[in-house]
């Protein structure tokens, strides 16, 4: 009987011996400052952009970036609480509030893409014929067509709410479904429900092949979607990895990374247009639409 218990304890200890000790956790060791915690939105991570960019950054600077991909609202919250070193987000209004509250330093433009309205083949709200995004949103309300909202306080959700407001429409009723989930999940739901939804073009391109939906409205200037990178305030949190945050900010805004962003494509379509250097922006803008 004693032997049974002994053997059992040995078995329990076995995985512990086989796996590297937990003390090797890099964010806990003395090399702590070699890790940068980046709170960002699902759109930059799910589209594959960060997986594509960050290995170069690591190779050149030695910093390891821990990506925490959540909605913009939560990313800003994590940054403001000092639980991340730097944030990469897309919600200009919320970003300004973030800086005003002294949670972060200044907003640095990185890139932009745009939002599109996707919907079912049948296009029950007739968005194909709408000329402005205002008309498009009004048509959805008028025809009571199903619309899936992110409902998660993300950048896309904030944008969507501002569009309803601008169109003077009330986003409520049986046709309006708040999912409370990430962009990918919402695209899947809208696909299953034959509903419309608002999505950033980057995520849409990454999901397009798996979705029965199609772009139903695009191209209005109002739908521009700028991304900023902001270092969390070093005055507020003195032990934050500010040096690392600045290294990432400078790197991602330098010419080389900006070129990498411009070259990042899915199915031959560019996902994001670099915008750190406005002078270069005009040259690049022509190629972003369709």
């Amino acid at each position, binding site marked *: *009987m*004693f032997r*049974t*218990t002994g*053997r*059992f304890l040995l*078995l*329990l*200890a076995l*995985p*512990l011996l086989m*796996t*590297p000790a*937990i003390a090797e*956790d*890099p*964010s*806990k060791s003395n090399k702590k400052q070699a890790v940068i*915690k980046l709170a960002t939105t*699902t759109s930059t991570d*799910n589209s594959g952009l960060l*997986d594509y960019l960050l290995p170069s950054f690591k190779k050149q600077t030695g910093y390891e970036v*821990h*990506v*925490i*991909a959540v909605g913009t609202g939560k990313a800003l919250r994590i940054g403001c*609480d*000092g*639980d*991340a070193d730097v944030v990469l987000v897309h919600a200009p209004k919320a970003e300004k509030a973030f800086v005003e509250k002294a949670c972060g330093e200044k907003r640095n433009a990185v890139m932009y893409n745009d939002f599109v309205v996707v919907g079912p083949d049948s296009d029950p709200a007739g968005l194909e014929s709408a000329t402005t995004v205002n008309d498009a949103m009004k048509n959805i309300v008028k025809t009571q067509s199903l619309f899936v909202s992110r409902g998660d306080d993300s950048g896309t959700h904030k944008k969507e709410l501002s569009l309803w407001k601008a169109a003077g429409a009330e986003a409520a009723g049986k046709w309006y479904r708040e999912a409370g*989930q*990430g962009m*990918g*999940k919402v*695209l*899947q739901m809208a696909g299953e429900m034959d509903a419309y939804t608002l999505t950033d073009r980057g995520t849409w391109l*990454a*999901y397009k092949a*798996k*979705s029965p939906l199609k772009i139903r409205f695009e191209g209005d200037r109002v739908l521009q979607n700028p991304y900023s990178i902001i270092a969390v305030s070093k005055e507020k*949190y003195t032990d934050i990895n500010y040096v690392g945050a600045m290294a990432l900010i400078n790197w991602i805004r330098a010419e080389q990374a900006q070129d990498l962003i411009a070259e990042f494509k899915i199915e031959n379509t560019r996902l994001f247009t670099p915008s750190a250097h406005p002078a270069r922006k005009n040259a690049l803008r022509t190629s972003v639409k369709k």
Partner: protein
Amino acid sequence: MSNSSSAITDAFSLLVSGDAELWNIIGISFQVSTTAIALSIIPALVVAFLLAYIKFPGRRFLVSFFSTLLSVPAVVVGLTLYLVLSRHGLLGEWRLLFTQTAMVLGQMALSFPILVAMGHAALQSSDKRAWETARTLGAGVFKTIYIVLREVRFGLFAALLAAYGRILAEVGASMMLGGNILHHTRNIPTAIALETSKGDFAQGIALGMVLLMLAFTLNYLLHYFQGKEGLVE
């Protein structure tokens, strides 16, 4: 959906190809969950033992309390610890949020009540005479505790398996506390949640099958070492 069958075939090929990313995720899952269970089992057994063998005021309350904790959603455990570990939280100084240690703490908090409640139930079924006999025959307190625990070892095994199974499969607390960071805090359940949200069902199903297969292997081994083949003798 037409691609659900291809998702399963993709899952199989992913498994046999020995995908490095996949094995990294599996490694993190087991490292975190095994550490959590190893750290919580001894104190949990002590609590279970006290609840079963010592009369003290508030004992009944504690028994109900630990049983109630079984119904707390993992996400709530995650959120509570998140607030504690966040920089502004009680233990914010430790800077543990979004690390494996935070995940271990979350899983300890999840497994502890299971171990206590089920361990207590197992000990309740033990015969108090075993304790008395051992003591009369001159066994020391620790030796006696060991004898009693051995007496109910099958119930304790069941508690261990239930607790390990729960934390190996839970997603809510790991997602909140670990942050699902690739190569660092991404374990099997959070990876499944991520792949599902990305629409990569094949990868999600593959990971789900890995989890099942590993859980089965573990269960089989434990039952084997337990050495009774589940039969009443």
